[in-house]
């Protein structure tokens, strides 16, 4: 007997809220801290102005620690996917029931939207005008298709770690949260200044909605990058892991 779908959906919303509030919030705060500084290169749009790649490591760790905490807090209740790509990857490989997919996705998007709106309210107008609520976008020189591929590769690694460290019954118990959190931190450190390193459609949805509603940039044209890339990456990783670990 599992916890009811309603309670599990609430847990998914809360977990995604934590992810977006602290993770995307860290990106917004970094942009606010760097406001007024002169970027060293045109590749730098603010994040990286203070500590180079260290800025991205800090943002990655904010995401990673929030994710690890959420997994340890909520993992036994809902599974703590907090990412539509992960939910769909598990569904595609027959590990997650189809009837639960839509409620999980809705909860993840609602949690992300609530986090961005509450962050904007708590921090003030600069969170939108300067921080962009931590919205993701490809960086200078990175095209649409390139960004999709980078998002797919990043999410591929994330899902591969989830499969190996959590789904596989042979995995060492208790380490999945830490492994997944640190993996996300590493992926963001490398790909943050390329595609924005969303790895998660809900993580991008929240800031996009907040920016759009509160007078910030309208970035919806970029949203397909953060839907297509992560879903392809997660589904591929799940199938590949099954193939590699099968008899």
């Amino acid at each position, binding site marked *: *007997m*599992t916890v009811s779908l309603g309670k599990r959906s609430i847990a998914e919303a809360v977990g995604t809220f934590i992810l977006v509030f602290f993770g995307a919030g860290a990106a917004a705060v970094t942009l606010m801290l760097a406001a007024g500084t002169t970027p060293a290169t045109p590749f730098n749009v603010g994040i990286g102005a203070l500590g180079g790649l260290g800025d991205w490591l800090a943002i990655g760790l904010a995401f990673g620690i929030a994710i690890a905490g959420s997994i340890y807090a909520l*993992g*036994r209740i*809902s*599974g703590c996917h907090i990412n539509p790509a992960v939910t769909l990857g*598990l569904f595609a490989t027959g590990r997650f029931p189809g009837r639960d997919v839509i409620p999980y996705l809705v909860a993840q998007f609602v949690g992300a939207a609530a986090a961005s709106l509450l962050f904007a309210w708590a921090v003030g107008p600069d969170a939108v005008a300067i921080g962009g609520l931590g919205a993701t976008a490809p960086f200078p020189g990175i095209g649409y298709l390139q960004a999709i591929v980078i998002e797919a590769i990043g999410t591929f690694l994330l899902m591969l770690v989830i499969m190996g460290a*959590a789904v596989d019954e042979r995995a060492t118990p208790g380490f*999945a949260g830490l492994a997944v959190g640190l993996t996300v931190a590493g992926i963001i450190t490398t790909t943050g200044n390329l595609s924005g390193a969303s790895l998660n459609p809900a993580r991008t949805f929240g800031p996009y909605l907040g920016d759009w509603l509160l007078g910030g940039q309208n970035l919806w044209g970029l949203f397909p990058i953060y839907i297509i890339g992560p879903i392809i990456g997660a589904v591929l990783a799940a199938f590949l892991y099954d193939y590699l670990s099968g008899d």
Partner: protein
Amino acid sequence: MKCCYCALEGRESEAVAICIVCGMGLCMEHVVRKDVDVWEGGYPFPSKRVKAPLPRILCPECYAALYGK
């Protein structure tokens, strides 16, 4: 094996169970059965409580120490 509690009371009775914590032999009068829920699964899946709980045999002292009753 004899029941340790009965022996302490100067009686003699056959043990029917052993306390899982201290290993004391227990007769039907002194045995305490505590059913423990068993959960399986966990991240990235919701935990599931298996239908049948696990029976756990305890002596009155260990039961009181573990559950404060």
